[in-house]
């Protein structure tokens, strides 16, 4: 049964290889090959899932050791996989949502002549992501980690002829690299202190404790912070969040799969997976929670101001992941809920993005919500699915988002102490803002009057419902986003499922669950109400009003990019330019200078050779005089 694990990865990897090396002859069928293999991977996942369910909860860890990868003395890295409840959850999410999005893309990318490569990249992403969650040691995880980075780079920049896309792709990769630095340093620290970076011996599991138990808190805090840096990069958490907005340059299915459902949640996976480390490093945990809280507000605020539907959703993604990170930072209280929210978010956010894609599909790839309006009549299925996703994300009671997010807020309060209150407060506030901006999106897109005009060359968009191949995935995801939360909480099955890995702890909430739930719902209602008041009652202006300071700031991602540009980009340019100068004038100059000076000396000495016999004789005479003098001197001394 373990041997299936490799197949999980092999299937999409094979797809990627075939599609990328296959050449033009595969253009016709490429998309189907990709989709098929992705579904195959999903099938394997399901089989393995069934197998795990059949096992006793403590025995639910399968490992597969393929071969020894790098081996230098004590440095030992294997290509080995570990499938436990945590990674299983991810496998299902990734392959499931992934497959649906493959299917969706078949329709969405229908008219793109480079379709084959697109599916190749998607498969590549699946493979890398699966490697990430199945790896049995941090170094192999690192491979997947950068692999998904590469895939996202390729997919964000898929429409390379657009400079904006190429730039966005580069930016994403670079920002991620900064995070990766954290991960690699973390691995080095592990090797330095523990001599290993494999999950088993390091983190423990199957009963016996890992080495981290013997390490001092300071060490673990250092490692934890480095891991957090990595997580920030991949999961677009403050301060490394700037790339996610631009990443929306990629085709919408990409945004749905990579930048909403799966890849960006890798950071959460990393933190939860490293729970053993964080549990023993409270300071690190605190930082994690702070990052999460800040990001969830940051994202939410940004989301409120964007008129670009995808950017708005991106903001929301950022903020939702903020929730997860916050939860993950809470330790055993929150791990389970972080993952739960991650899964549900995977459903509804993917659904929302696909909906947005469907809208764009119908609107000639128009993304400005101010040019939408009243679309519910034109694309009902999209409207319904999008709506369900909307209800889910704002946490409408009974839908998935409600359960997961509510639990996180509870956990935040349950952290106890002042930080408990602060974090909980942030989470509540975030819930309200979420409700606001999502409602705003909903209203601007599907309600009100139509606001689109013919573009400069006169062809007016004719909004229409998308083909089945696109709508079916949306429907499935919508169902998921409705039902998932309820299923997970059915006798808190999810908690029991994950507990063996992450552990679970109820903490001691200062308020009763009911109160918090009430508060959450209230916040949600308030948010919705405000949004309705602003966008539902009066018509939406087709061009964005100047807006308040906060709005303007939010539109520019709270000036975070401008900061990067001025400090990093400009500064870097100056630095490199001056260094080029230094290299040419100084480092090179010294050498050339020496050469030149020798030449000059030569020129001067050359003049002694003036062609006159008598001066030659003089030099000889002087020479012999010196010779004699020196000899005598030698004797004298």
């Amino acid at each position: 049964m373990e041997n299936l694990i490799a197949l999980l990865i092999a299937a999409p990897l094979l797809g990627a290889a075939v599609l990328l090396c296959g050449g033009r002859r595969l253009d016709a069928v490429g998309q189907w090959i990709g989709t098929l293999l992705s579904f195959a991977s999903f099938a394997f996942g399901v089989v393995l899932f069934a197998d795990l369910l059949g096992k006793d909860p403590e025995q639910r860890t399968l490992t597969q050791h393929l071969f020894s990868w790098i081996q230098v003395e004590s440095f030992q890295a294997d290509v080995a996989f570990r499938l436990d409840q945590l990674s299983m959850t991810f496998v299902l999410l990734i392959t499931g949502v992934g497959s649906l999005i493959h299917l969706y893309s078949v329709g969405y990318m229908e008219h793109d002549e480079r379709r084959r490569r697109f599916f190749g990249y998607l498969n590549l992403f699946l493979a890398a992501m699966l490697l990430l969650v199945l790896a049995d040691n941090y170094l192999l995880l690192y491979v997947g980690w950068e692999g998904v980075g590469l895939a996202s780079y390729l997919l964000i920049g898929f429409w390379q002829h657009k400079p904006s896309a190429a730039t966005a792709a580069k930016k994403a990769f670079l920002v991620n690299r900064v995070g990766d630095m954290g991960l690699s340093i973390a691995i080095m620290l592990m090797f330095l202190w523990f001599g290993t970076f494999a999950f088993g011996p390091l983190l423990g599991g199957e009963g016996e404790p890992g080495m981290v138990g013997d390490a001092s808190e300071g060490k673990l805090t250092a490692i934890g912070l480095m891991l957090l840096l990595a997580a920030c990069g991949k999961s677009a958490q403050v301060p490394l969040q700037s790339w996610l907005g631009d990443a929306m340059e990629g085709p919408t299915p990409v945004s749905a799969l990579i930048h909403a459902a799966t890849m960006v949640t890798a950071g959460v996976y990393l933190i939860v997976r490293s729970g053993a480390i964080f549990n023993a490093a409270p300071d690190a945990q605190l930082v994690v929670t702070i990052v999460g809280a800040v990001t969830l507000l940051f994202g939410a605020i940004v989301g409120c101001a964007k008129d670009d539907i995808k950017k708005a959703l991106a903001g929301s993604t950022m903020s939702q992941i903020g929730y997860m990170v916050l939860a993950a930072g809470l330790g055993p209280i929150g791990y389970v809920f972080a993952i739960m929210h991650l899964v549900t978010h995977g459903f509804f956010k993917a659904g929302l993005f696909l909906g947005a894609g469907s809208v764009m599909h119908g609107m000639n790839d128009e993304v400005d919500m101010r040019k939408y309006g009243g679309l519910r009549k034109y694309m009902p299925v999209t409207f319904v699915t999008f709506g369900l996703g909307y209800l889910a994300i704002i946490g409408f009671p009974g839908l998935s988002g409600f359960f997961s997010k509510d639990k996180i807020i509870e956990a935040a309060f349950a952290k106890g102490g002042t930080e408990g209150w602060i974090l909980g407060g942030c989470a509540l506030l975030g819930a309200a803002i979420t409700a606001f901006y999502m409602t705003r999106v909903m209203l601007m897109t599907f309600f009100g009057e139509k606001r689109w005009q013919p573009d400069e060359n006169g062809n007016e968009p004719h909004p229409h419902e998308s083909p089945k191949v696109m709508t079916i995935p949306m429907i499935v995801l919508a169902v998921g986003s409705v039902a998932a939360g309820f299923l997970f909480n059915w006798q808190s099955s999810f908690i029991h499922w994950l507990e063996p890995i992450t552990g679970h702890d109820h903490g001691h909430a200062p308020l009763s669950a009911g109160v918090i739930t009430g508060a959450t719902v209230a916040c949600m209602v308030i948010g919705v109400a405000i949004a309705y008041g602003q966008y539902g009652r009066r018509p939406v202006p087709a061009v964005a009003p100047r807006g308040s300071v906060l709005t303007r700031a939010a539109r520019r991602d709270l000036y975070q990019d401008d900061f990067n540009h001025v400090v990093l980009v400009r500064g870097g340019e100056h630095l490199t330019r001056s260094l080029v100068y230094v290299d040419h004038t100084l480092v090179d100059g010294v050498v050339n200078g020496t050469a030149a000076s020798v030449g000059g000396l030569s020129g001067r000495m050359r003049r002694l050779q003036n062609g006159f016999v008598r001066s030659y004789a003089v030099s000889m005479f002087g020479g012999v005089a010196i010779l004699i003098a020196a000899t005598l001197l030698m004797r004298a001394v």
Partner: protein
Amino acid sequence: MSFPLLTATAVLPAIGAIATAAVPAAQRTAAKWLALLVSLGTLALAITVLVRFDPDGDRYQLTESHSWIAEFGVRYELGVDGIAVALIALTALLIPFIILAGWHDADPLETGSKRWRPTQGFFALILAVEAMVIISFEATDVFLFYIFFEAMLIPMYFLIGGFGDRAHEHGEKAASTQRSYAAVKFLLYNLVGGLIMLAAVIGLYVVAGNFSLQAIAEARANGTLDMATNTERWLFLGFFFAFAVKAPLWPLHTWLPNAMGEATAPVAVLITAVVDKVGTFAMLRFCLQLFPEASKWATPAILVLALISIVYGALLAVGQRDMKRLIAYASISHFGFIIMGIFAMTSQGQSGATLYMVNHGISTAALMLVAGFLISRRGSRLIADYGGVQKVAPVLAGTFLIGGLATLSLPGLAPFVSEFLVLVGTFTRYPVIGIIATFGIVLAALYVLVLYQRTMTGPVKPEVSAMPDLRVRELVVVAPLIALLIFLGVYPKPITDIVNPAVQQTMSDVHKKDPQPEVEAAK
């Protein structure tokens, strides 16, 4: 006595060089094929060496030893350890690709010129370089090594100066002056380094009385030959200087961008992927074995220089307008990593460094050769002259990207393994340096992606709109390299197995042990 395999490996290309040079002017193509066949034959021999080499056997294997210049205590002593084997294999592997890639680089400008001989010269010189590089990897006699270490400058010099890149922003005239400047700079830098080494070599003889690496190392080990501290340090510096010029290490690096910029892409690969490796190899083999104490004494300074090379090279790569110079500065950064790994004095660092030499050879070859194909199409080295190539020549762009990703050492590709090993190896002993060096990976991503974005993506420039995609010959060159990059990225074991024992030997030469993990120790 048994068949002198090592000698054969070095002599075959040498003979091939002479034969190629002797091919009459009219049979240009014949000369090319001859050179290619010879290089393939050499590859076969090198593979035989690889097979015959027993990782768990003696330190030096397939040894040959004949008296040569008894007067100077010089013997013709050959022998390979794991490190040498790996690098010989790399050299023999790359040369055929270099020849194939340079297939038309030395063709006459106007077709059908009868008395055109440079073509023969070009390929003959490449083979000559191969022969000399291989023998300097094999030599276990300091003098023998030195002779070829120096002599290989001459063919390199003519390759750089005689067959420059015809693509030049200011036309052929400027190109030729630039070229001879680069060639002279290359030669003088390395000659000065070599001469300073000569003084040290003589000094070594005065101290040790012979040149046999094994004998001296042994004598150093069992204390029968003890050098005064200062003597050892001076000798070490003499050797190291030459190797640092060759490697090149900041601030002795400025010849490399000129040379790589002006030379044709295959020759540039020859420089950075093959010839320069002799420098880093020699640090590992000669500096550490002959002068262990001095090596340890100099380690901090060298590590700092290596660190500067890493960051400095990367930053300058970002600032380049000429893509070949960019790759050159990238190489400088990579050599920084290699040297850092060598002098970190840990198993991971040194194995990583050796692995790095091999991987860097392959990845730079891939990137540089594709860049060469690109340049040969457009006739310009300036990054600004390109744009949107990806649209018209997707395969070229794809290979270019893979080469680039290898250069930024993406996990899954070969360079990652070596780079991470070097970083870990350094980090375990010098955490701060290790962390600063890690910034290199971000900068690497920066210059590679900027290069790719500016050349390959964006709207198609009119000048490149008619650009043909990779031809079959070019694919034959690039595809195997890429395959190799992926294979070694996933399964580096074949090389590490060979290299590790040799590295352990070196570690014991310098009396260094890997630092033990603290928590382990605590347990």
